[in-house]
């Protein structure tokens, strides 16, 4: 399947990836993060990622957020090389972390990209979550690092980083499904 995909043209594959992800992303009310769609594009010499995510937080994380507890989401992106007989080799791995916090003075929601320290504030939580779910032009890999003859896979998921929560909350978070938020791995060919 994967080798078949590699011979198809890039736009077709991208389209197929969006469709497939849209199918697997079934609507559910439980607290979750879903990857609605994701694609990689070659932008000059750099592969960059576009992805759309949908965050649905449960009451406990929302209450914690309202009380000033920052929540960290981690975007995990891996570029892998499929191998016969052996497990896939991970060529590159990127961790993109976002801190989501409510500011009591300005009554705004602040999203900080922990990799770049860039801050964006929003009047409402929904706006902030929409911002978090709208990833555009995230550079992930230089084309020079890849062998053009080989086929590569990209996979991605989003998790709520429990270890970044205040210590007293961690044990509870590990035990509660409201906190153990993680999307499925979404995989497509580069």
């Amino acid at each position: 399947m994967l080798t078949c995909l590699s011979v198809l043209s890039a736009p077709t594959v991208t389209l197929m990836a969006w469709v497939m992800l849209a199918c697997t992303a079934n609507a559910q009310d439980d607290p979750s993060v879903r990857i609605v769609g994701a694609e990689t594009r070659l932008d000059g010499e750099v592969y960059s990622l576009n992805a759309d995510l949908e965050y649905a937080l449960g009451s406990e994380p929302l209450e914690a957020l309202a009380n000033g507890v920052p929540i960290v989401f981690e975007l995990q992106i891996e570029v892998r090389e499929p191998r016969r007989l052996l497990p896939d080799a991970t060529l590159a791995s990127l961790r993109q972390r976002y801190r989501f916090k409510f500011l009591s003075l300005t009554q705004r929601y602040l999203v900080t990209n922990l990799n770049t320290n860039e801050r964006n504030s929003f009047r409402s939580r929904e706006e902030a979550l929409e911002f978090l779910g709208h990833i555009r032009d995230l550079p992930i890999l230089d084309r020079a690092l890849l062998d053009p003859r080989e086929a590569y896979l990209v996979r991605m998921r989003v998790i709520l980083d429990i270890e970044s929560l205040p210590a007293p909350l961690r044990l509870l978070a590990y035990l509660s499904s409201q906190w153990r938020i993680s999307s499925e791995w979404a995989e497509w060919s580069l």
Partner: protein
Amino acid sequence: MVAVKRSGLSGLLGVLLLFALLLGSLMIMSDATQNSARFGRLYSALLLFNAIGLLILTAISGYQLYRLIAQYRARTAGARLTLRLVALFVVLSVVPVSVVYYFSVQFLQRGIDSWFDVRIEAALDDALDLSRASLDLRMRETLRQTQRMASQMENVSPGLATLSLTELRETFGADKLMLMEGAGRIVATASEDASIVPDRPDEAILEQVRQGKTHVALYPGRQSGLQIRVVVPISEGSTMLTEQRVLQALFPVSDRFNTLAESVEAAYDSYRQLAFLRGPLKTSFLITLSLVLAASLLTALWTAVESARRLVAPVRDLAEGTLAVSKGRYDQRLPVPSNDELGFLVMSFNQMTRNLSYARDQATRSQRLLERQRAYLETVLSSLSSGVLTMRHDGRLRTANTAAGQILGVVRDELLDRSPDDVAATRPYLEPFCELIETHLRLGRSEWAEQATLFGINGRQVLMCRGSSLTDDRGLTGHVVVFDDITTLVQAQRNAAWGEVARRMAHEIKNPLTPIQLAAERIRHKYVGHVGEDQGQVLDRATHTIIQQVKALKEMVDAFNEYAHSPNLKLTPVDLNALVSEVMFLYRDNPGSIDVVVDADPNVPMVNADSVRMRQLLHNLVKNATEAMEGRADSELRVRTRYLEHEGNPCVEIAIEDNGPGFPSDSVTDVFEPYVTTKAKGTGLGLAIVKKIVEEHGGLIRAEAARTGGARVVIQLPYGETHRTEDAAAALEPPRATLVGD
């Protein structure tokens, strides 16, 4: 033992190290619970480590406890005491620790609750409000400034807009100014840093401004600090501009304001966070406290078990050692645990077992020596040809040597632990022997000697018995009886004696007889014609008497010689009934008018006997009887044969009975001795020869009074597998030469 100690020590060190690690990590965890910068990130790892550490500690302690309980159930020595000590230690540690735990939990709850105070909360709220109020002032000011800028920007053409904006920015101290058309298109910007990406207001703000309203808001800057964003519409003063324009100004907040506001916000957030996390915080502290409690208790339990085990080890060793000693194992040497009282006890125990072991070895050596001596004595006794019996003081047989069994014809064990009476009851032929012993035991003589005659399976046996009492300092302890089978010896002695008598008689009496006879015949021949008729008659009578008497003397000496020099027995199977009938037939037709009645038992088997001697025996008996009945008109001789069991031994019996005057009552026992006779005629050897023949055949003979008043002689000849063979009979011949020499 050293290895055990070393492993115990390493175990102790291991558990103490684990406990120390747990305690350390619990301290760090307690620090981490408060979200400290140092250990905050390690909290989960620490929690996991502590949980695993506790599991290990639980497993170790649980295993120890399980082993202890298993030992208790198996009733292993010392387990009960160990368990009791462990229970004591555990109670001693659990009670105070539980009390401390209870109060700690109470203090924890109250302590955390006491962090939160309505006044502090209100103060923080006020501080936030104050910050907002002071920022509001700044925001109003920036709004006014922006509105002034907007009024100055009225009617400014797009070409000059950038220049005007730069001027205004510098004048009013804004970070960034942006002139936009109502639809959102940027007309001109003025910024301190040209590289900064345009920071456009969002559509909602633009919509608000398009409706003629102003927008002023405080928000976090892209990199740090706070910014004030003011967006105002620009009035439609000029006709050449068809679309309404919007001015956005971004003002910085002073550093001092920023710092203070951040500080207030941080404190406020921290307080709210803490209030929100109150429950989880308590839980976390409680978990940490419980882990500390569990670690302490488990370590205490382990230590309790280990200490109790160490404490009890010498006691257990002692118990096991004592048990071993009670089972006779004296080689137990216990390790001396320490120099305290227990150590002294163990040393004493070791000394005791050493002494016991030495004593036991000594005893074993003595016993072995005794056994060797006993075996030696036994060998000596068994090699003796004499029978030796020892008896307890109550007469029961204690030991008997092999020869005793052989002589008495019984298995030796049959005699042991039984009284002579008991033995006689099962072996009737031993009765004379047993009675003899009983009699002497009863009489209580210290030493005695007597003969006993038995008639057993081996025929007649003469036993020479000598008894002696065994005494020691405590008095009478038993008796010993030594006896010999002197049957052949007696026979030989008697034969030798009679042989000597016969030789003397032949020499001393028979030799002179011939000259006497010759002399008498000569006197008669020479002088009977030369004396007168009267004298001649006297001489004739006298010489005749001499010659007759000498002849009689010669006959007597010959008969005696015959008695003394009996030829060797020639044993052949003999039909006794036939022999008796044959001999009696000779006398039946005798003119002596004697009625001979033969009563033969058809069951009488063939016996091994010398037929010639037996014939002589019968002749002698018949002759004796006929002589006794001489002169009686109704003389009757009854001969009867029987096959019977004599005291358990098969034998053949011949009884000859007459109706003569019988034996004189005082000589019944002596009738078989030579020259004991009541008759005027006869050599006095008839019955003696009979007895001799019977004894040569190993039989018994007795004389008794018949019911008719006459004499009755009963002969019993042994029958069975143990008949005397020819060789045995030959052995009966006395070693004459030797005895003569004596």
